[in-house]
């Protein structure tokens, strides 16, 4: 088993909230992602057993959404919004800044496996642009000084 008892228990508790068990699929995928940082076919199989739905139902849902990647990423996933409101305030140059700072290209992970840098669609932070999300946290109204500090602090913490 990949999923630990805590995750399994969480999934079972969540499933009780819904009138139909299939509704537990997305919450279960979220819990699995929170534990492992990815959700692949082996995990789909475990989830299918826990929720008691066919494997294909899990796979079908999981592959539609952006928040359940099949492969693990760096310890810190940096997601930069590159949509219009952020782009008007320099989101593209923010991506370049991060590429230079981390010495990787968009879509790549640093050698020490600490940072993965990707661009994403609108994160609902348009009046505080430009912005990025690192794991669960939003960082808004970004400036080069702020970004530099955020990255340095995460490096120091790791």
């Amino acid at each position, binding site marked *: 088993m990949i999923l630990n008892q805590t995750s399994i228990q969480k999934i079972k508790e969540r499933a009780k909230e819904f009138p139909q068990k299939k509704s537990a699929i997305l919450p279960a995928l979220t819990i699995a992602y929170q534990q492992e940082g990815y959700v692949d076919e082996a995990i789909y199989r475990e989830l299918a057993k826990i929720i008691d739905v066919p494997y294909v139902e899990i796979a079908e*849902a999981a592959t539609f959404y952006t928040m359940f990647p099949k492969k693990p990423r760096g310890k810190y996933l940096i997601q930069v919004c590159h949509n219009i409101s952020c782009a008007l*305030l320099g989101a593209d140059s923010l991506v370049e800044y991060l590429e230079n700072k981390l010495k990787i290209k968009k879509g790549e992970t640093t050698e020490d496996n600490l940072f993965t840098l990707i661009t994403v669609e609108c994160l609902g932070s348009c009046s505080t642009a430009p912005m990025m999300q690192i794991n669960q946290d939003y960082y808004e109204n970004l400036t080069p000084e702020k970004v530099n500090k955020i990255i340095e602090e995460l490096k120091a913490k790791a």
Partner: protein
Amino acid sequence: MFYSPVRTNAAQVAKDENLHLFRYVEDPDQCKVDTFVAHGGYEAWKKVLNGMSADEVIDVVKKSGLRGRGGAGFPTGMKWSFVPKDSTKPRYLCCNADESEPGTCKDRVLLERDPHSVIEGMAIAAYAIKCHLMFIYIRGEFAYAIERMKQARDEALAKGHLGKNIYSSGYDLDMVIYSGGGAYICGEETALLNSLEGHRGQPRIRPPFPAIEGLYASPTIVNNVESLASVPYIIKRGAQWYSSLGTEKSSGTKIFSLSGHVKQPGNYEVALGFNLKKLIYDPQYGGGILGDKKLKGVIPGGASTPFLTPEMIDIKLDYESLQEVGSMLGSGAVIVFHEETCIVWTILKLTHFFHHESCGKCTPCREGTAWLEQIIRRIENGQGRDGDIEKIEDICNNILGRTICPLGDAAVMPIQSSIKHWRDEWQYHIEHKKCMVETHFEFK
């Protein structure tokens, strides 16, 4: 997890007795149930449970003129009245908190800073349709809002605002918090319901409408966060008061998310019919264009609404005025861009979004948005060809009106309006293989 630092006009709202949604959003304790109650929270819910019938609630909301704040502008009370009275199936209410239309960041503020106001609105709506289990579908990326909402729900349950036999009225109501998986399309109500049932978030063919057959094939109402948060005030102060705010066909107040090239981006609550030019230039709101540059254009209601040119912005922000000039109020996301913005670059940003978010169910949208992005990217990269504009127009015409949900139309409308307003710039880009205005925005 962090709280949104977005600028709001809460101080101004506090001085105007007719504005209400943002009254307490700068109070850090507003998210706690006791503070919310001290500020008059849950009074409307008590009033409803202590003596209003479901039909009376629907009637008040109908008469208030409240229209859906998520984008479509459909009358909220009328939507509720579509739930069949004789249905023996359970009924469900879903609050749509899947805020992801580029430019829109208003619901997040309500969810994070005044979560009980959303719960109270949901509870009243649930009662109006005789629902005993309500859901809130929050986009998965809003981790902080999800946490806040969970705390608020648990507090509301502990204090008896939700749960069994609420205020000894005999009414039971429970609430489920559901987080999405990252998909813009789930803001479309039937896609949201599919997602909530554990499927891919793809829209359903209507009819049947959700009010007849929605979640788990039962009567279901889906309402936006801001629409629901408006309901308690309508119940407390009456339909007449609410309909006296705003304009004749667009009553009440609305939150506008102002973003892009303005000095003071933020979320501003104003009465509908507020002047767009004032919103952009007034020192109390947008404060003018960044760097005092010249305005080039405005997207008035989120990424899917047609552009306005500078000569069009002396206009009332309401459903009918924007429709008259060929645009839409949408979600109230006003995106401003100045003279140094290339229109092809802007459209490429928008089209990339819709291509990425197309769910793939309908061929015209799935294939069409991909072709559009490809052609527009080619033009932006200086490889445009003769006839590209006509090709883009042809693809647009073959998407428009030919898809199950409005995402296809949403992708097309800004493109069409940009060609209408700035055809010479598109032409220039193709002929000269470069932008008419050099576009490079540094973050600083």
